[in-house]
């Protein structure tokens, strides 16, 4: 405003008496009134007043003095001033006003925006204006109020106050504002005004007017402008972000999505809509898509939501070669931003001012960055700067690289010199270590131990070592390098450290001496032993010299009966060992005892008395093998103060006998002191002793056995067990000891000298099983078995035969005498000259048989009525009927107790016994259910009656039919096969008999029947009871050829009797 030309003109014309004046009307009405004075710069003021009478109102110049200059500076009045206003060239009266300081207003000139620059990528507005400080006479505090408006309707978004100091000169002020909405979304407006805080100014102070609004037009006001904004932006996790979609006027937006989620839209203008995403979460590697769906298309943008870089942690710098300083750190939380938005690192060295950009792999957890070592600089002050689109961080470290040396792995490890006890090595480490000293460690290990040595000077000869090396700074240790690759090297050979351990033995013939030596241990051999030199000296004279190549460990020297001193030297490629000497002299010994020893623990303990004259110790010698194998001599030396030894050997096996010899050493030779046999562990004998029976009697057995071979004893024999018990030879029989035989007897023979035994108190002619077992402390051997039968007792046998013979003879004599004396009675009784039937034993015999069945009354010797044949129906066969129904009591009731009681029923008058009886007697076990066995007697008179009745009354009691069935009846039944009824079948079942032949073919006649006479066929009638008893009475009164006739083809003893009278 100060530059406004009209105001300048006004001021030029104005007459100011003092400074800023506030008018106070003191004149009359119609004169100038309402005088107001305002200053904009605290140096000049502008007064206005009204001319009420003429209605004029305006600014009038009032003059104090005249000046032709264009600019007049009038200092501010110190106090109140009187102002007279007189219009020039008029007749109006002069008006006077009193103006006080406090009546003058101070209103700064309206600020003017110099520039408003948008940054669309960051949605930031940059505002620039001048503070006009030069117009004020002194420095002042200024307040600037900036108003941001948005949309076409110019809605206020924010109003901020900016403070500044006016420094009596014009300063361009700048202010940035970041919008929460992309600037493209809609138009943004900015206005500014100011307030000068002039504390010394007493009058009222006020804000300046707002500056004209500066606008940043949005895309929605741009013809054809469209898109989704912000474009490809990066925001921090948790931010609130606004996205807008600007489209063409004729398009219609359907929805907007953030990721896959639709959001509520806010209309910014007719062409612009926005969504607001609160607290945005981290996006995927490819960002989050924001899509604006239009009716006929779509548009979108991508936003990357991530984290600002974390402060680098564990920053550490070191050098491995003094060429490059390698700094490492941990990045902390991943930013979630990749590609061109990834976190970038730079290493800045403050002392040198050198900056290095770091190429890091964002997928690695550890980050490294190299910085070149600068000449003549030991200390480095590093600042690691980290930045990404969201933020930045840094970390610093001060290092002295001479104290941060981490050498690389030593390479090219090689051996440059080698002898038997030391090795010279060389290796290479890439780097420039001239300025420092290195400390290196060499790890030395051999196959035998993992011993690590610092020095490689005290090595053993002929030993394979593995070497590896690592290094560090010697003066300021920081880190060891990695171990180098291992190197194997064998030290050179050296002569054996000592002579071999030797022993000698004379051959059984005494003509030669066998010299043994033990191989030296690896540590003693100091190389590969190639041979042994054996010499034999008698005093100083060499009797024999032999070179025995490896691997032999013994040699034989022909010595005859003489003695010598034997010397043995082991040799390898580096040289000979010191000699080992032993004399061949063996001192005589007496009372050499043989003890037994069993291993306790893992060795065989051998003890002996102290022999004071054994000045050079003791030697225990044994064979490593036993039995038939050739003796492989082994020995062990003990000092002269020892009185026992535990001999251990991995070659000792359980159950094998070893023989130890204890020798005492004197200056003149060796003397055998004692022998010891021992076992590492006793086992049961492998086999049983062989035994034989030498002698057998009726009550004793003499058994002899042999010794078990030593190899099969497998322990010290304790005795034998001889077991015996009765038993037959049977391959399947278990061992006696396992059989549990209560008669088993066991004899324990502990006297090992005893080789036979007599077993007494045995039974004669009895088989015995013998078993013999040997046993040791380890257990019983398997048994050896024998079966022996004791001899028979001949006297007893003779007595046993003679006595029964004598008794029989005696009884025979007595019976003969008795029979002779009673011969008449016997004859009368058993063989009368005229047989009396009543006395007939045979008949009695028959009756006895019949008495077996109480219902049968046979041989009732009633006066025989020749013209009648009386038949009884025997029930002796009734039990033979299988059908139980036939056994019913009813059947018994139908059979009369006495046949004479009922003539209508079965008749009981007996005239003979049917032939079947004899069959029954002669063959009682035969239970043939046939009618022949049932038929005893048949009443010829009534023989047809039952049959007829049976035909007429099929329901007749089955028992009556069971006893006998006329065979014709059966034939009838047989003829009625076609008309079988169930009843008939039942009858068939009840029938105890079936015709054995075609009954039609039978001859119905008896031998004496007319038919039979005519035919003269006796065979046809044979067996018929009818034909046997009486030829007269067997014929029925009325000859009926069609009637069935019983037929019996049997033969009976009674038949003979019956026929006899006729004869």
């Amino acid at each position: 405003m100060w530059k406004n030309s009209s105001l300048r003109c006004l001021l030029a014309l104005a007459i100011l008496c003092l400074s800023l004046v506030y008018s106070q009307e003191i004149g009359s009405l119609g004169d100038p009134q309402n005088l107001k004075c305002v200053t904009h710069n605290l140096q000049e003021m502008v007064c206005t007043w009204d001319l009420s009478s003429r209605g004029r109102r305006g600014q009038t110049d009032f003059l104090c003095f005249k000046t032709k200059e264009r600019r007049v500076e009038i200092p501010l009045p110190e106090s109140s001033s009187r102002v007279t206003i007189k219009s020039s060239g008029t007749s109006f009266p002069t008006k006077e006003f009193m103006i006080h300081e406090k009546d003058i207003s101070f209103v700064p000139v309206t600020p003017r925006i110099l520039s408003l620059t948008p940054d669309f990528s960051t949605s930031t507005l940059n505002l620039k204006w001048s503070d006009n400080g030069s117009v004020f006479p002194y420095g002042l505090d200024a307040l600037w109020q900036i108003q941001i408006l948005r949309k076409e309707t110019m809605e206020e978004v924010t109003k901020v106050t900016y403070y500044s100091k006016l420094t009596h000169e014009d300063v361009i002020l700048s202010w940035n504002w970041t919008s929460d909405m992309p600037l493209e979304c809609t138009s943004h407006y900015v206005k500014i005004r100011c307030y000068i805080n002039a504390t010394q100014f007493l009058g009222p102070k006020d804000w300046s007017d707002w500056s004209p609004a500066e606008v940043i037009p949005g895309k929605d006001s741009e013809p054809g402008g469209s898109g989704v904004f912000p474009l490809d932006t990066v925001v921090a996790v948790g931010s609130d972000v606004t996205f807008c979609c600007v489209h063409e006027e004729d398009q219609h937006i359907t929805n907007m999505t953030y990721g896959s989620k639709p959001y509520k839209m806010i209309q910014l203008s007719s062409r612009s809509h926005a969504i607001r995403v609160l607290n945005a979460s981290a996006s995927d590697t490819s960002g989050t898509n924001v899509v604006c769906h239009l009716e006929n298309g779509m548009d979108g943008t991508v936003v990357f939501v991530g984290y600002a870089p974390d402060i680098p942690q564990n920053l550490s710098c070191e050098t491995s070669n003094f060429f490059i300083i390698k700094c490492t750190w941990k990045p902390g939380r991943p930013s979630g931003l990749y590609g061109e938005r990834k976190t970038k690192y730079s290493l800045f060295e403050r002392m040198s001012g050198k900056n290095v950009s770091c190429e890091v792999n964002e997928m690695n957890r550890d980050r490294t960055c190299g910085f070149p070592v600068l000449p003549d600089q030991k200390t480095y002050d590093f600042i690691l700067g980290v930045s990404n689109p969201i933020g930045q961080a840094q970390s610093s470290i001060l290092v002295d690289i001479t104290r941060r040396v981490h050498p690389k792995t030593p390479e090219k490890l090689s051996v440059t010199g080698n002898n038997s006890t030391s090795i010279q090595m060389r290796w290479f480490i890439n780097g420039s270590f001239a300025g420092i000293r290195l400390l290196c460690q060499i790890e030395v290990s051999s196959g035998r131990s993992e011993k690590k040595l610092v020095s490689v000077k005290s090595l053993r000869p002929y030993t394979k070592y593995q070497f590896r090396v690592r290094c560090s700074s010697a003066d300021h240790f920081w880190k060891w390098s990695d171990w180098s690759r291992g190197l194997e090297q064998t030290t050179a050979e050296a002569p054996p450290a000592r002579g071999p351990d030797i022993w000698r033995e004379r051959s059984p013939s005494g003509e030669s001496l066998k010299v043994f030596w033990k191989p030296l241990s690896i540590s003693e051999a100091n190389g590969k032993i190639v041979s042994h030199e054996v010499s034999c000296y008698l005093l100083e004279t060499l009797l024999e010299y032999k070179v025995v190549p490896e691997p032999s460990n013994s040699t034989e020297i022909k010595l005859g009966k003489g003695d010598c001193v034997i010397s043995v030297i082991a040799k390898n490629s580096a040289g000979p060992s010191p000699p080992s000497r032993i004399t061949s002299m063996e001192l005589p010994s007496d009372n050499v005892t043989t003890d037994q020893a069993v291993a306790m623990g893992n060795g065989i303990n051998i003890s002996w008395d102290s022999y004071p004259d054994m000045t050079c110790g003791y030697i225990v010698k044994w064979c490593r093998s036993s039995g038939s194998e050739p003796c492989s001599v082994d020995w062990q030396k003990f000092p002269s103060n020892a009185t026992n030894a535990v001999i251990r050997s991995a070659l000792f096996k359980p159950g094998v006998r070893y023989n130890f010899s204890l020798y005492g050493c004197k200056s003149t030779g060796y003397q055998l002191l004692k022998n010891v046999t021992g076992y590492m562990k006793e086992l049961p004998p492998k086999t049983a002793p062989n035994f034989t029976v030498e002698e057998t009697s009726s009550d004793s057995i003499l058994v002899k056995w042999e010794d078990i071979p030593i190899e099969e004893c497998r322990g010290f024999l304790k005795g034998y067990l001889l077991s015996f018990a009765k038993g037959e030879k049977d391959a399947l029989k278990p061992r006696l000891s396992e059989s549990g035989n209560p008669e088993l007897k066991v004899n324990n023979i502990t006297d090992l000298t005893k080789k036979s035994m007599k077993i007494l108190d045995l039974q004669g002619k009895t088989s015995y099983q013998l078993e013999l077992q040997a046993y040791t402390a380890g257990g019983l051997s398997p048994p050896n078995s024998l079966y022996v039968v004791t001899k028979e007792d001949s006297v007893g046998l003779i007595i046993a035969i003679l006595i029964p013979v004598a008794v029989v003879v005696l009884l025979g004599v007595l019976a003969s005498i008795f029979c002779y004396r009673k011969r008449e009675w016997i004859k009368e009784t058993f063989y009368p000259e005229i047989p009396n039937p009543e006395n007939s034993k045979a008949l009695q015999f028959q009756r006895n048989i019949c008495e077996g069945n109480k219902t049968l009354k046979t041989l009732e010797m009633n006066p025989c009525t020749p013209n009648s044949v009386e038949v009884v129906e025997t029930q002796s066969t009734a039990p033979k009927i299988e059908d139980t129904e036939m056994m019913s009591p009813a059947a018994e009731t139908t059979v009369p107790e006495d046949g004479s009681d009922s003539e209508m029923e079965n008749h009981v008058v007996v005239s003979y016994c049917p032939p079947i009886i004899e069959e029954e007697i002669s063959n009682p076990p035969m239970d043939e259910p046939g009618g022949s066995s049932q038929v005893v007697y048949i009443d010829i008179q009534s023989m047809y009656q039952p049959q007829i009745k049976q035909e007429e009354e099929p329901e007749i009691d089955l028992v009556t039919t069971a006893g006998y069935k006329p065979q014709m009846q059966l034939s009838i039944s047989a003829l009625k096969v076609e008309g079988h009824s169930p009843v008939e079948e039942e009858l068939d079942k009840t029938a105890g008999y079936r015709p054995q032949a075609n009954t039609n073919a039978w001859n119905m006649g008896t031998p004496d029947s007319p038919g039979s006479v005519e035919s003269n066929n006796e065979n046809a009638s044979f067996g018929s009871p009818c034909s046997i008893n009486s030829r007269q009475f067997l014929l029925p009164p009325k000859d009926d050829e069609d009637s069935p006739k019983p037929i019996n083809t049997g033969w009976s003893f009674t038949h003979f009797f019956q026929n006899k009278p006729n004869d």
Partner: protein
Amino acid sequence: MAAADSPSAALRRRDLCSRGIRLAGKMRVDVIDLLDAYVERQGLDVSSLDSSVAAVEGVPLAAVERWDEQTGTQRLLENLAAYRAFRALLAQMLEEQREQLGEADAGLGRALASVLLQVSAFTYHLEELLRLESRGEGEEEEDRPAPPPRLSIFEQKLRGLGVLRELAQWAVRSARDLRQLSKPSPATGTAAGLAESP
């Protein structure tokens, strides 16, 4: 097509066609897989994008009218143009993918590189076939088109989707074209005359 194919040339053409068909089949399978991976990794909602993915600039459309009336040479030339465009576009996609994702999604980068390799191989295959036809067309690759204007990341994603979709279509069409080519034709330059359409 050559007027009088020698037996060896016919055999060679048939062999090239059959190998090309196999290559196209393999390429389609890989492109379909890549398409799935691409859509997933780029966070694209295919259902809402179907109607919005415009044709890719510079790539002839696989679907054409009167396909059955095309000559063998026309088929080969169209194929060649398409695959050369695909080669450039895929290379650009690969570069953009490296820029945007760095080492973060190496799997997608490898798949893209693999498809690019197959497209290059198929392009070479088509060039061989065209040479066999003795036409000489297409032997020299056309001048590279001017690099497209810088696209926003969203536009890059959409363009990538469009490229892969069109490539999948082209793989099918190429197989059919080559099958058509492998059939003995009675005369040179005449349409195959088959009712088959891509």
